[in-house]
């Protein structure tokens, strides 16, 4: 019996080609998934795929785009599966980010945390497709690069970015209005 054995993955090539993109991939994954553990899983999945295609990545002019393309499609696939069988969905109850803050004042700290939480909630209310394109935009990619990563045509992409930004704005404003009474009470104190 012949057993197929995967060839060993050359660590140095992985370290050279893929590792430098970890932070970028993680940021994008975090924006997409909204929480750390899912983001890490998503990045790991992307790494797994990358290990199989190191030659291909080596031939790419932009390895980051190759990796983000994989990450993007894995996220979209997962989001679709979740939508079809919503065992657990991203919602308001998703973990809020705990970020180290350098602001000393407790009130400022609270306000900042609240503002971040507000943004987080609004962000997670976006449709997964919208969150995906905005995540790439937030990573600094322009239309041509996002087009290359996602495979979405230019017209659709423009419209989707526009719509996504409007949705985000709407969610943010709705949340701000909801939080307004609490903010007023705080400011009066």
């Amino acid at each position, binding site marked *: 019996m012949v057993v197929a054995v995967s060839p060993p993955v050359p660590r140095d090539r992985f370290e050279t080609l893929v590792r430098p993109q970890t932070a970028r991939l993680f*940021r994008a994954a975090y924006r997409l998934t909204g929480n750390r553990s899912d983001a890490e899983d998503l990045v790991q999945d992307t790494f797994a795929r990358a290990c199989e295609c190191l030659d291909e990545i080596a031939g790419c002019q932009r390895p980051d785009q190759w990796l983000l393309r994989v990450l993007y499609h894995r996220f979209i696939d997962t989001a679709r599966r979740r939508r079809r069988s919503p065992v657990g969905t991203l919602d308001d109850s998703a973990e809020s980010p705990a970020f180290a803050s350098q602001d000393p004042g407790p009130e400022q700290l609270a306000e900042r945390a609240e503002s971040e939480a507000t943004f987080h909630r609004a962000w997670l209310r976006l449709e997964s497709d919208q969150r995906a394109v905005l995540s790439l935009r937030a990573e600094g990619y322009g239309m041509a690069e996002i087009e290359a990563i996602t495979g979405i045509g230019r*017209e659709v992409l423009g419209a989707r970015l526009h719509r996504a930004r409007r949705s*985000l*704005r709407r969610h943010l404003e709705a949340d701000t209005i909801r939080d307004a009474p609490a903010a007023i009470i705080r400011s009066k104190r």
Partner: protein
Amino acid sequence: MNCQEIGNILNDQDIGALSPAVVTSAREHLATCDECARDWKAHEQMLAMPMPVPGPGLLEWRPANRGVSDATSRRSLRGTLLLGALIAVGAAAAVYVAVEQSESMRTTESRAAGPTSDVVSPQDEPVGAATDSSPDDEQPGSIATGADASPATNPPDVAPVPEPVVDSTIAAVPPETIAAVPPETTAAVCSRTATSSGTLKVVLLPARASTPDRASEALVQEIRQDTLRALLAMPAVEVVDLGPVDLAVLAPNAGSLRDDNLLFIAISQRYQSTVVAEISERTTASGLSWSIDLLVRQRESAGGSANEISKDGSPAISSLLQTLGVKSLGTEYAGLIARRAARPPILNLMPDACNVFLDASRPENERLQALAQLRNDGLDGETLAVAVALAVESPSARTRQRVWSLLRGSEYHPPLAGLLSSALVSDADAAVRKEAALGLAAYLREGSTLAVLEHAAGNDVSTEVRLAARMAMMSYDEQLAFKREILLDRSLTPAERFAPTSNFTTLRMPVPLTYHDGQAEEALAYSEILGATDDPQLENSVLSELSNTIIALRTDERSNQIDVRIIPVLAETVASDDPRVRRQAIRALISLAEFPEARAALESVIENYPELAADMRIEQVLAPQPVRRTAP
């Protein structure tokens, strides 16, 4: 800098690396445009989104599990094992079923067809496909419709259909032609000629009587049979005789959705028909009236009047209308009134719209609904006077606007010119003044109408009123050119680009949109507006206009001019938060279902919005057409 350029920056550029000149220009625009300022702020908030640092697990080198974390790996393994097991079980079951079916099919075939017969497997034919009828099954002299003897097509609560009475106004069809109609429960396609591109295809829906009366039901069925005969007698007409069961398969809740355009569109798509015809009884405020509702393929105004169709200018359709005895809107089908009058009177269960409207104690919204019904039959002097009083005296601007809007579509009443002029000059509400300006377009030759409109066009404080007054003075061609010029001006905001189109749509009513040059370009412009706005109300209006334009292109057989770049924008719009917009976008996609891109988008809708897709019967639209058989 304008909104479009701000949008381009937010979509494509690093706002931290903009040149000082661009920043200054952008700031100037943001100071004056609230929408862009809020977009910009949201973008900045997004860029400022705080990021946690990745956990140490991500930084480890784990080639042993090919870079996959333990948890992921375990999940994948579990998933793989489960999937493998399921595939194995499924495969075994499939083999078992296939063998069973094969055995049973062989048996059936050998019994039914004998060893030499070339029988098509039932699995090869889609649901609802027309099945062949053997000559022995045919009943000479009868028309197989949904009202035939089959229990499935003749529900117990419907009176048996009497023998068809051939109306002298309709050309009689030889019995042998009628006998060629395939039997009951399948959508029968009958043709006098071979199908060709020049053939007019008509889907004849089951008849419908809105009055719960058996006599009405029976008479409607009678008329339908006559119509079927007339259609079959016409050259170059292919008829799809859609029975109640076919309709039920196509649209399970068609009873309540019969007036919905979607049903008609779905049928048109499914059967690739030019015309969907329905014989229906309508009850109007003035009493019972009979009508034949006809629909040009994918026309938005489903169930649209015969008048709309005759204006399409298609000789084939005009010929069809003449054959059916429909001459113009409001002209009853010849002989129907007399035939209906010969039947015993029935109880009119519809509320008396006239009484409702004249009853000042009723809520205004009820009265407005009644007025909407009444205006279809024309308003008598008393009703008109009360309507005008409501338009002038109601404290609600919404009511005043609505009444003027309803009166706009009514008959020509010269005294209205003075009242509309007065409203345009003195009403405090801009929406009412705008409606009055648009209403005055019908009375340009009356008194001082032109002077009043000119004054409003130059001096009204509202931009919308000035625009409406300006357009009201234009001829149809001038309106068309003006709305086109503004629509294609990409330096304007989406709302500005669409405003003249909105007025144009109002002014042209009730005349349907027909094809004019450059419409394909306009459709693309609508899609641009759609992609650039997020205002649900504007999106709705644009989608409606876009759908009408697509339909106009298609009914004029200019589908090849439709720019498929519209489709991805529509597909994107389906993701709108507003359910009405979502539905409208899907509706537009349905009207484009002949394009593979649109079909792919609709498949995506089925996947992402299964309930909505079921409600809008997208699967039926995408379903392959049933096998058709042509009568000899």
